[in-house]
Structures are given as C-alpha cells and as structure tokens.
C-alpha cells in the first residue's frame, strides 16, 4: 500500500504479523503492539515508539516524543484500475476484519462524516464514515460478521437523489 504524505511516499507491505515500511532507499520493519483511540504503540526496527495520530480530512496530526507534525495526505496518482469498482455511495471494507458495530439502519438519514459502522482489524478500529449527507439505502453486513477486503458494507444515497 502506497501513501503520500506531504511530498514523501511511503510504502507499507504486510509481512505476516508485521509490516515492511519503505521510504526512498530506507526500509524498516514495523510491528503494531497495540492501538487505542488515536494512539499507536509501535515497534519500529526494534525501537518502541508511541505515536498519537489524528485525522481530519486530508490532514494528519502526528505526535512522537512530544513533537507534533501536521502532514497532508495527497490523494495520489493511483487510478482505480485494479480491484472491483463500486458506485459512489457504496462503501467497501478497506481491509479484512470484523464488524464491531453497526450504528445505522436502512432508511436512516446520515450526515457527512457520521460514523456508520466500526470494523476491527489488525487490532485497530476502523470507522466507516459517510462520504456525504444522504440516506442509508442498503446494509450488506451485520454486527459480528467477518468481512473480506473490498466486501460491500453499506450503500448511501445522496439526499438529492432520494
């Protein structure tokens, strides 16, 4: 998985129980020891690092060792050529995991950024948020269900269309 933050591209490859992170000519092993509400306990190349990370649209606030950095995620050059396509309001699981909570029902009105459901994966909570104001047209999963990557979770219809 490649992510570009500010002007630096970083590549994360799962290697079993940990990840290989590559940035330029540097490569390190990263293990997630624990996560909790925006706090990541990491083992990076044998060094224990606690990072606090918050997301706000494309902004990423990261604090390590008391220094806070504000990064901007670039919605990069990658084209969705590979992988299944979904309609604009269809949300798919970003990675395999388990549905921990479903906060909405079919027919509910939702607002942009509202947390629709929570997945748990790799000891992390993934909040599935509504991309726009709209209505829940279809729920494809139930609480407790295990989902695969790219599996459809929920369909949101924009308010204008409904």
């Amino acid at each position, binding site marked *: *998985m*490649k*992510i570009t*933050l500010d002007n*630096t591209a*970083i590549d*994360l490859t*799962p290697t*079993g129980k940990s*990840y290989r*992170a590559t*940035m330029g000519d*540097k490569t*390190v092993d*990263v293990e997630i020891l624990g996560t909790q509400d*925006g706090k*990541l306990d*990491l083992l*990076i190349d044998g060094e224990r*690092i606690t*990072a*606090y*990370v*918050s*997301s*706000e649209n494309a902004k*990423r*606030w*990261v604090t*390590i*060792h*008391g*220094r*806070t*950095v504000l*990064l901007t*995620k670039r919605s990069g050059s*990658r084209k*969705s050529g*590979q*992988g299944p396509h*979904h309609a604009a309001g269809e*949300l*798919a699981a*970003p990675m*395999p*995991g388990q549905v921990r909570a479903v906060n909405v029902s079919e027919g509910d009105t939702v607002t942009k950024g509202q*947390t*629709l459901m929570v997945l748990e*994966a*790799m*000891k*992390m909570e*993934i*909040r*599935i*948020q509504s991309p726009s104001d709209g209505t829940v047209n279809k729920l494809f999963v139930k609480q407790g269900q*295990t989902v695969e*990557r*790219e599996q459809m979770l929920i369909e949101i219809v924009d308010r204008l269309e409904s």
Partner: protein
Amino acid sequence: MFKKILIANRGEIAIRIMRACRELGIRAVAVYSDADKHSAHAQFADEAIHIGPASPKESYLNADVLIRAAITSQADAIHPGYGFLSENASFAAAVDSAKLTFIGPSADSIRAMGDKAESKIAMKKAGVPTVPGKEGLESFAEFEKAANEIGYPILVKASAGGGGKGMRIVWDANDLPEEIDSARREALHAFGDERLLIEKYIADAHHIEFQVFGDKHGHLVHLFERECSVQRRHQKIIEETPSPLLTPKLRKQMGEAAVKAAKAVNYYNAGTIEFIFNPSDSSFYFLEMNTRLQVEHPVTELTTGLDLVQWQIRVAAGEHFPYQQGQLTQRGHAIECRIYAEDPANGFLPSTGVLLQYIEPRGPGIRVDSGFRAGDTVTHFYDPMLAKLIVYAENRGTAIQKMQAALRDFVVHGVVTNIDFLQDVLAHENFKDGKVSTRWVEMNMESGGSSRSQGVLPKERQQAVGFHTLIAAALADFTIANRKSEIINEHDPYSPWKNPNGFRN
C-alpha cells in the same frame, strides 16, 4: 462564610475557582455564553446560567446580566477571575450596591490603580520607585532638557497611549527632534491627543512582579516574586518563581516596595505589583498594579504552600489573613508554561478548531489548570489559552527538566499550539542562564520555530523522527474510512482472523 458564589468568568480560571469553592463547601454557579454551552466550566459547576451570545460584550462583559444572574441564583458573592470585568471599578461598585460581595479589592483601590498616570503619581508620593521620566512637556527645548537629565536611551510615549502607538525609543540626542515629531503625529492620529511624556528606556528589562495579599482588617503582606520576562507581543508565556535574578536583599527591598505600593491604595485581597527590573544595575521601578488574581498565581501557590483562591474567598468573607511576613517562606522552584492554541511560525496567530486529541501530562510535581477536553472546540471568541502547565521541583534546574518532560507528554491535535516553541525556549542557553528579557522572544525567536532545528535534536535523530512520523501516519490511515485500500493480505498465514481464539490477548 458564603453559601454560594457566582463565577463571572469562563475556561480554566472559572474551574480553578470552582475547585476552591467545592473544597470550602460553597456551591459554585457558572455563567456561560452561547458558545460555551458545552464548555468544561459550565459542566463542572453546581449550577450554570446562560448569560447571552458568544460575543464577550454581550455576555461575560455584561455587568447587569451577571449581577442579575447572581441575584437569581441566590449567590452571596461574585468572583470575577482575571480579564473580563475583574479590573472594572464600576462593576465592583455595582456588585456592592446589589448587596453582594465582590471577591477582590475595593472599587476605590481598583480605580486608584487603573489610571496609569495617576497611579504613577500616587506611587511617587508613597515613595515607591517609578521609571524616571517627565510629563507635561511642550517645547522642544523642554524635551531636550528632560532627556539629557534622564539620560539616553529614552522612551517617548503618548500620554493617552497604549498598544505601542506613539511610542519611540530614542538612542541618541540627534534623533530626538525627528522622533518627537513623528510620535506626536502618530499620537494625534491614534488618540486625538498629541501630548507626550518621556521615560528612561531600559534596554534589557526584566518583568518581575510581586504578589501581595491583604485582608479587610489592614493586614497586608507580599508573597514573593514571579519572574515573567518570557513574553511575546507583551504577553507572558512562561512564568517562574523564584526569579533567578534576585538576591535575598533585593527580594526584601522589592517586597517592601510592593507592600508600600499596595498599602498606599488601602489594598485588600490578592493583587500584583509589576516592576521593571534593570539587570545591569539591579534597579527596579513600579510599572503598574494588577488588582486581581493573576493567570500565573499557581507558581506562587506551589512555592508558598498557600491556596490563593481559597484565601481570596476567605478574606472577602471577612476572615483575617493569619500569616505575618516573617512566617512566609519560598520553598523549591515552580515554572508555568501557558499552552496556547496559536502558531508561533505564523506570528503567533490564534489557531481555532476541534481538539481531535487532548492529553494532559501527569506525574509527581505536575499541575495542569485547563478548561478544555478532547472534542471541545477552540473558538475565536475567547483567549486562545488552552491550559497552564505548572511544575514544581527542588530547584530551577530540576524544574526546567520536569517542565521539558511534561511538555513532551502534552498531546494536542486539531489546533496548532506553542508547545514546540516552549520547548525551544526552555532548551535555550539564555533561558537556562536566566538572561531572558522582555524583548528576548522578539529578538531571538521572531520567526517562531526557526531556531527549532538547531541544537534541539541532532540531524540524524530528526530524520528518524520524520520517518517514524510518516510510518505512524500511514498505518493510522487504515482508520480513515471510505478508502479502497490496496493492502493485500488475504493469504496472510498469520492473519488474526484465521485464529479462532482471542487474538487480542
């Protein structure tokens, strides 16, 4: 003793006062504006009363509404905190007229110290040193003569002035005519009043203030000094006590002058005498008196062992302040850092937003006075101070170390803060040497974080931190929804999803 106190303020100071009320068994009434309905201070109180729109003028500065709220809630007294109406003599008088107790000095004391020119005259009369200067000058010859008597550099100031308008530093007699003309023009333009006064200019001045405390029975003492020279835009950001510049002898002299100054206006309750201190010859001059509780009162509390807010309430209720000057001592060293939502790299402009994360440091000797929680919104309506971080340790060196460690554990996301900037100041040699004057930030750190990279972290370490930061941000990105991840690990033999047992253990 009072049964119920209305706190005519908001944020951290309102909570600080409510804690004292609670400890004394007094009910605390909060007031809140539209913008503060969900604020921590309104939630912390025993009761909360809505007082109007977000704009301070229509809420926290609205004396009538505040007094009415106190009467409606059947409070016996009003604590004004700092800022807002705390130094407004008419408000103090109006509180008295409403048969409520104003927790602070008398309206007369506030009035006497409120006018800068008049208070200076009163201080001179009381024998308190004031900055050498001359007022009521007209012809250029008079200015020239006075400037020569005082000695250069001198400061030319608008009599009606404030905010640096019509203010000029004159280093040399040759520049005097031109600077007077231009200061006059500026003063006339800004205040409609071209009168100027001149004062001795103290180039590397420190700001050293003395806490005074008195009861309503004529007993008044000082509670030692606070060094508040680390300032940006004339606002304090780091305060400490004891001052690294004072000797026991100087401390005694200044303390006595502070007591004299306060007694000259029949002062009672908590107050602060601010001095300009010239480190080159250890001379000190009365600058002004703050007739209220100060933001930085915690450093005095930690080193004297007194709870100033509790005592404010007790003496307002008529109790005697029981300690004589000789019984009071300073112990250890305390430093306060003001955590502001502001961007040092961008002229210290306030930063607003939602606090995505807000984690305060903890540990022995660490105190945090704050009015925010995670999820709160920092608005542009009010002061951008998020919290005060105060540490207490045996001596100055260990206190600095403790502050550095505590700042490292302070996490704020969602608004830009001055935390990194404070770290840079604390790590600076000048600060360690106690050589920071009131203009130091302006002269040394003006571009905010520009000096950050030097000497704080070695280059290699910085790069490592950069890489770690990127890794953390990328990993956490999984938690952002609606993004089609390109991660492929279905065939991961170690996948926790393939483990039927509780993988989280």
